[in-house]
């Protein structure tokens, strides 16, 4: 499965986000309707480390803006 599709599946199944409101460029954190929080970000970091061997610990929040930016960081660092 494509990287972005796998990230979306993880965010929906584990973090409880409805698939029909989540596009690859949808804002994930802050005032976005998705409204993920700091614990959710740790789950994403753990998932990315476990699945792709890419450690996003301490990475700037601009890389967590959306599925697009997370995928781009993984591609650039794996």
């Amino acid at each position: 499965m494509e990287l972005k599709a796998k990230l979306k599946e993880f965010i929906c199944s584990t973090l409880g986000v409805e698939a029909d409101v989540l596009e690859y460029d949808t804002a994930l954190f802050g005032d976005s309707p998705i409204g993920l929080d700091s614990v959710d970000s740790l789950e994403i970091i753990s998932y990315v480390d476990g699945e792709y061997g890419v450690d996003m610990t301490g990475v700037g929040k601009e890389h967590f803006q959306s599925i697009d930016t997370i995928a781009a960081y993984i591609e650039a660092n794996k």
Partner: protein
Amino acid sequence: MNINEINEKIKQRPPFQMIDRVTELVPNESAVGLKCVSVNEPHFLGHFPESPIMPGVLIIESCAQLCSLVIEGSNEPDKLYVLLKVDGFKFLKPVIPGDRLEISVKKTRGGAGVFSFDAEVKADGRVHAKGSLMFTAIDRSSVYER
């Protein structure tokens, strides 16, 4: 692992010690532990005076303490392993004094210092509770920053 060996690994003490014995342990993977429920435990004074039932949050705490025994290095002096998330817990049957809880925990994910476990709690061979827990390590000093 008996109670003395458990005490070397975790910081909790009575009346907040929720694992009495560990019967199986695969470091960083899984464990099975026992919690013997006694009417002498202080929470039964109020939960409930006429009907002692072990609070669900303490069943979760029992699972959490067993998980902390699975995580290698969770006894580091400057670090504290904290519960981040409790997910999908179900309490299928009340736990009462006299029950011997057989608690099984199995790690499901462990990347980037975040550990997730599935937990199942049985008594007399029947599942009484089950759910998932997530932990991470934080600096002990950061807990008290305000």
